[in-house]
């Protein structure tokens, strides 16, 4: 599928959820075995078009996420490629056992699309904030974890996933009118991080919405004379360790994610770095270990120190 400038902007305007709804229309062209299943999330995911165009490939299980995974696993066992859609918090937390047994242990290629991952619907409170999902999924062997940086990367990740046989969790974050990281089409491969920009002093390895914020933070740091590398680690598992190795000459390695500092990208990078005798200090930026009150997305990012200026200040403090 060609992704031109107007499509990139349209995806950004729609936000990652409804971008899924648009890209879903293309998925059966990539893999005729694709079916799309929802836990009553048809409208939030913009799947009305898919339902109308592909009624035989669309199943609404209702608000029953655990059953959703079970039925999807059965279909995968019969050779289908199910994309299942639910709120990230419920798709991972509530369905952990189903994902462990029916997807990871049985090696069934179900694709779990988690909506509103991170803080994006934090106005509903901690029940809907999904900042533990990567930690949960990461401890399961063989699950691929994707965390797109923007809506174009959401489209790229979904299309790549349709051709990939592995069980996968796709973490969709952000809201409508998402910032654009990639302004033109580019090469995307699951498991291969993208160096967005090179730099020598600081290396920021970011994922999801934090890629854009890290790019902005890097611009501010460069105004202060620092050279900053930014890596888009869109695949959290399997981790692109070569991309991390390429960051080790920096004075400070930073990981940035809209997820708990426990168990996410920061932990994955720290686990990889732990046995190395010589390595730069590693600053892990994410949501620290606490619950906050319900609030709008930008407010919550600020509460957790995830805005570009806050990233910049934390980096400067740790560089000294």
């Amino acid at each position, binding site marked *: 599928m060609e992704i031109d400038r*107007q*499509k990139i*902007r349209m995806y950004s305007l729609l936000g990652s959820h*409804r971008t899924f709804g648009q890209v879903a229309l293309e998925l059966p062209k990539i893999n005729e075995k694709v079916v799309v299943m929802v836990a009553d999330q048809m409208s939030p995911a913009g799947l009305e078009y898919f339902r109308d165009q592909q009624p035989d490939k669309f199943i609404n299980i209702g608000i029953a996420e655990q059953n959703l995974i079970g039925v999807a696993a059965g279909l995968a066992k019969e050779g289908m490629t199910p994309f299942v859609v639910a709120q990230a918090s419920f798709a991972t937390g509530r369905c952990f056992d189903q994902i462990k047994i029916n997807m990871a242990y049985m090696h069934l290629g179900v694709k779990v699309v988690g909506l509103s991952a991170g803080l994006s619907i934090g106005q509903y409170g901690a029940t809907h904030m999904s900042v533990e999902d990567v930690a949960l999924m990461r401890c399961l062997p063989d699950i691929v974890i994707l965390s797109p940086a923007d809506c174009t990367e959401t489209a790229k990740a979904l299309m790549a996933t349709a051709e990939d046989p592995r069980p996968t969790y796709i973490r969709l974050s952000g809201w409508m009118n998402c910032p654009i990281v990639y302004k033109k089409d580019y090469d995307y491969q699951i498991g291969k991080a993208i160096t967005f920009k090179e730099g020598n002093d600081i290396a920021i390895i970011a994922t999801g919405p934090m890629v854009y914020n890290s790019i902005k933070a890097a611009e501010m740091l460069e105004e202060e004379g620092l050279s900053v590398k930014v890596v888009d680690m869109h695949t959290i598992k399997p981790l692109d360790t070569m991309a991390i190795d390429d960051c080790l000459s920096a004075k400070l390695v930073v990981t940035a994610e809209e997820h708990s500092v426990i168990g996410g990208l920061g932990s994955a990078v720290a686990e990889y770095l732990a046995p190395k005798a010589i390595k730069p200090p590693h600053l892990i930026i994410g949501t620290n270990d606490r619950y906050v009150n319900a609030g709008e997305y930008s407010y919550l990012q600020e509460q957790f120190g995830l805005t570009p200026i806050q990233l910049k200040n934390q980096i400067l403090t740790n560089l000294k």
Partner: protein
Amino acid sequence: MTNLEKYNQVMCDSLQVSAEQLPGLKYQDVELWDSVGHMTLVANLEDAFDILMETDDIIDFSSYEKGKEILAKYDIDFSK
């Protein structure tokens, strides 16, 4: 091409309507002006006028006439 002609052209092409249908045309009056079509329309207008619209303006853009008011905020002069 004047700005008004350009605006009309984008509206007609994006929503697959004729110029005669534009006056009074509102969001969801035609099949293609649904939520996704709205974003396509906005993306096409942004491209045509080289602007980037704010989220509140995208949501407020509820009719052909309202669209002209909103674009005027981005220094699009429809008298030219």
